[in-house]
C-alpha cells in the first residue's frame, strides 16, 4: 500500500498583533502533529472545538502554510509558503465543508458549481466539462435534471451530495471531510456515509475525516487520531483506540458520548429509582 499523505511534526502558530494597550500574542494552534494515511484508508481526527482540527484541515488542503514541519503528498514534499504550487498539486487534495447551506454559492446553478473547479484548474473544453459534471451528478445519486437548478431547491442531504461531487470533479487522491454529516439528520446522515463508503471503494479515495461524533468515527474510520489543545494525544488503529484509550482526555470523551443501548438505559433507570 502506498502512503498518500504524510505529516511530520506540523506546527502552526497564529500571531495576534498587539495594540496600544494589548501585548502581541502568539497562539500555538498546532504543536507538532505527525501521521500518515495509506491509499484507500480513512483517518478520523477527533477533538473538541478549538483543538486545532480545522487548522490541520486547512494545512492539509494547502490553504494555509504550516509554520514548521513537513507535509508530503504522494511522497512529494509540498511547501505552499514558498509559492511553488502547481495546479497539478492543488488537484490532489479537495475539501468538503461542514455546512452545505453555507458552502454552495446561492447564485450559481448546480452545473456551474460543479464545472467551476475545472475552469479554474484545467483547460478542459466546455462540452467535456459538461459531460463530466453530468456523470458526477449521477455518481453521487442525483440526476441530470438537477444540473440547471439552484442550491436553495435542494435539501441538506442533497446539498452535501453536491458538495462532495464538486470536491471529486478534479479526481483528487485525498479528500478532507470537515464534519460532513454533523449538520444532517440521522436518516440523511446514513445515506451520506454510505455514499462516501461507495465512492471510496470505487475511486480508491483516501479520506481525512474530521469529526466530533464518536459513533460516526467508529463506523467509518480505519485509523483514529484524538487531538487536544493542538496536540495529538492518541493515535492508532480504530480498534486499538476504542478498545484501550490511553490518554485521560480520550477516556473523558468516551465517557461523555451518550449511549443508546438498552443496558445503559436500564442502568440509568435503576440509578434514578434508587435516588428517588
Amino acid at each position, binding site marked *: 500500500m502506498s502512503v498518500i499523505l504524510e505529516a511530520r511534526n506540523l506546527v502552526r502558530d497564529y500571531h495576534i498583533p498587539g495594540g496600544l494597550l494589548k501585548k502581541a500574542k502568539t497562539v500555538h494552534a498546532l504543536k507538532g502533529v505527525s501521521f500518515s494515511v495509506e491509499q484507500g484508508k480513512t483517518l478520523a481526527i477527533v477533538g*473538541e*472545538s478549538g483543538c486545532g482540527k480545522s487548522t490541520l484541515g486547512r494545512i492539509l488542503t494547502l490553504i494555509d502554510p504550516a509554520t514548521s514541519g513537513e507535509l508530503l503528498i504522494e511522497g512529494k514534499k509540498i511547501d505552499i509558503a514558498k509559492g511553488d504550487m502547481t495546479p497539478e498539486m492543488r488537484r490532489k487534495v479537495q475539501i468538503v465543508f461542514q455546512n452545505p447551506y453555507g458552502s454552495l454559492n446561492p447564485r450559481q446553478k448546480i452545473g456551474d458549481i460543479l464545472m467551476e473547479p475545472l475552469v479554474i484548474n484545467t483547460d478542459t473544453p466546455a462540452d467535456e466539462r459538461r459531460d463530466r459534471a453530468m456523470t458526477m451528478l449521477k455518481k453521487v445519486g442525483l440526476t441530470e435534471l438537477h444540473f440547471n437548478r439552484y442550491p436553495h431547491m435542494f435539501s*441538506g442531504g442533497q446539498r452535501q451530495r453536491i458538495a462532495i461531487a464538486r470536491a471529486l470533479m478534479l479526481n483528487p487522491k485525498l479528500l478532507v471531510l470537515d464534519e460532513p454529516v454533523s449538520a444532517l*439528520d*440521522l*436518516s*440523511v*446522515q*446514513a*445515506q451520506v*456515509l*454510505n455514499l462516501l*463508503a461507495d465512492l471510496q471503494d470505487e475511486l480508491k479515495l483516501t479520506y481525512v475525516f474530521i469529526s*466530533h*461524533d*464518536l*459513533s*460516526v468515527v*467508529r*463506523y*467509518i474510520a480505519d485509523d483514529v487520531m484524538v487531538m487536544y489543545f493542538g496536540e495529538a494525544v492518541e493515535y492508532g488503529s480504530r480498534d486499538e483506540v476504542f478498545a484501550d484509550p490511553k490518554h485521560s482526555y480520550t477516556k*473523558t*470523551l468516551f*465517557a*461523555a*458520548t*451518550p*449511549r*443508546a*443501548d*438498552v443496558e*445503559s*438505559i*436500564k442502568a*440509568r*433507570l435503576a440509578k434514578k429509582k434508587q*435516588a428517588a
Partner: protein
Amino acid sequence: MALLEIENLVVEFQTASGPFRAVNGVSMKVHEGEVLAIVGESGSGKSVSMLAAMGLLPWTAKVTADKLTFNGRDLLGMSANERRKIVGKDIAMIFQEPIASLNPCFTVGFQIEEVLRVHMGLDKAARRKRAIELFEAVGIPDPAERLGHYPHQMSGGQCQRVMIAIAIACNPKLLIADEPTTALDVTIQKQILDLLMKLQAEHRMGLIMITHNMGVVAETADRVVVQYKGRKMEEADVLTLFENPKSNYTRALLAALPDNATGDRLPTISELFVDEGAAQ
C-alpha cells in the same frame, strides 16, 4: 393531573401555495417531575408543537386543538396578556443556539434580571442577589463578575448555562428544552445534560426534551414521543422504545444509528420505512 395536556393539536401555516400542515393531530401529556423526549427529524413538527403550546408562533400559523391546557388552564382560549403571565414564568424554554438566543447588546446580568423584574417584581438588590444564586446553581464560576459580561465574551457552553439560568429564574413548573445541546461539543453536552437532569430532579419540574439525537434520549428521558412529518408515530417509555419499538419508523431510526451498524453499509430510513400516511 397532567401538567401539560395536548389533544389532537393541528398547526397550519398559510403559504403562497395553500395551507401547509406542520403538525397533524398530535396528542401528549407531561406530568410533574417527568422527562418527556420528543424525537424526530427536521420538519417533523417537534418544535412547532411546543411553540404552539407557548403561543410563540407567528400570526400566519393557525393553531387548533381539542384540548391544550397547562395546569388545568386552557392555553388556547386565554388572552395574550394572561398567557404572557404564564409563559416565561411557569413554562420556560431553552433554545438550540445559545449564542443566537441571547441579546448581544446587553450584559447577561441585565438579561437575567429582566426576567426577575417582569415576572417576580423584585427590587434591584434582590434581583442581583437572585441572579448570582442562579449563576451559581448552573455552575458559572465567578458569578458576580460574570453578570457584567456580554454574550460574546462567553463560550457556547457558558452561554447555554446562562440560558438555563434565565429559564429556571422563576422556578418554572415546566421546562421545554429545544435541542439544548446540538450546537455543543460532546464533553460540554454531557455537562449541560447532567445539569438539566440535576435541576429537574431538585425542583421536580416537568421537562420536555426536543431532540433528534437518540443518545440524548437514552440518557435523559422517562417517556418518548416519536414524530414524523407532523404525526405522532409512537409513544412509549424509554426502555420499551429501545428494546421493542412498535412502529416501523422508530425501528428504521434505531437501525440507522452508526452504533448499531452490523454490515459495512448503514441501513437507511427510506429502505426500511415506507410512509403509508403520505398517500392520504
